[in-house]
């Protein structure tokens, strides 16, 4: 099957910042993304898990975004402006997609 190169960016971020991040992505012209739940984790700021939260507020989510390689930099900049001062992790991977016109 004919596939096309793309990038897959995964951003793990505090749930309270989710709407700010997706707004920044939209403003940067990135309108395709998926949000995955996160149960817990551990990092420099210690470990946490959902069962230890009083409310969803302080949990985290993962925002996954598949994007054309040439649009990656613009997207990363938009994302970083939001993520920068918050706990969270950004990772980038190569991937392939089938219908390139969608990304």
């Amino acid at each position: 099957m004919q596939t096309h190169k793309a990038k897959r960016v995964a951003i793990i971020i505090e749930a309270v910042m989710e709407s700010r991040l997706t707004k920044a992505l939209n403003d940067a012209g990135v309108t395709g993304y998926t949000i995955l739940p996160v149960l817990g984790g551990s990092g420099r700021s210690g470990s946490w898990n959902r069962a230890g939260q009083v409310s969803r507020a302080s949990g985290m989510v993962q925002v996954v975004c598949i994007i054309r390689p040439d649009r990656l930099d613009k997207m990363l900049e938009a994302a970083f402006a939001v993520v920068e001062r918050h706990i969270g992790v950004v990772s980038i991977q190569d991937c392939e997609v089938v219908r390139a016109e969608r990304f």
Partner: protein
Amino acid sequence: MDQLLSLAAENLISPIILSFVLGLLASLFRSDLSVPEAAAKALSIYLLFAIGFKGGVSVADHGIDGRLGAALLAGIILSAGLPMVAFGLLRVMTRLERLDAAAVAAHYGSISIVTFVAGTSVLESQGIGSEGYMVAVAAAMEAPAILSALWLVARGGGSDARGMDSALLREIMLNGSIVLLVGSFLIGMITGPEGLAEISSFIVSPFKGVLCIFLLDMGLVAGRGLREGSGVLRPGVLAFGVVMPLVGSTIGLGTGLLLGLSTGGIALLMTLSASASYIAVPAAMRVALPEANPSLYLTLSLGVTFPFNLTLGLPLYVAVAQALTGG
């Protein structure tokens, strides 16, 4: 004093408090007992809806007291002012930096609605009435403290605060618990005792039992917070978590006497002033002051002040209110 002790003892052996203690112990001993997040959230929606509705019905029933406006204003001033007191205390009692101190202070100006709910249930089991609009006062006290804390940080001149933007302001003012509390208060006011009759076997009879399960979960969460966050609790910080509710409740007491509230109303205003937020304010702090340490304010508010208020604070506030009003 004797009365106080027996009151405290009675409070301590109620199913409600014991459920909290069970949760606390279970998580301190690392049992895997847990209440699913969705269930805990559903329980809190129930509690907010019930307490708001009942407050509204009580206002509909007794007519709006002339003091409602004054009480709301007092609540706003308390919420905005208490962070200043807390901030001062923190700078004296602890070595926290300005940013962390301001973030903690915000929590103590705002309120814990569960502590308030537990307070109403203590009053009720002693047959002490209170103004129905105290629920509205509680709602009014949620947010102003956040603005005070941001002002404290800004005054410090640091560029640390992301500060307040309009999106955040809207999020704070329209956060779910404020909207639900105020909304169900209004529904209760509109539908009155007839409305209550229709749904009282849902929001009145099972209320205390639901509160037990909710506090079981609060105990589990508080215990986990303590286990993981105890490292941040240096002696000064720990002491603040107990001293501040005493200071806050005293200020609440003075305000309540000034306003001429009933015995129950005074006890509730003391409770609100003594309590610290652990939902709305932490969320706002993560957005506005991301560099402040969340495990500091969460552990303090949820692991120290909440249990203190629930077990020792409540009976104390009620007893003091009774003693000073002869109620």
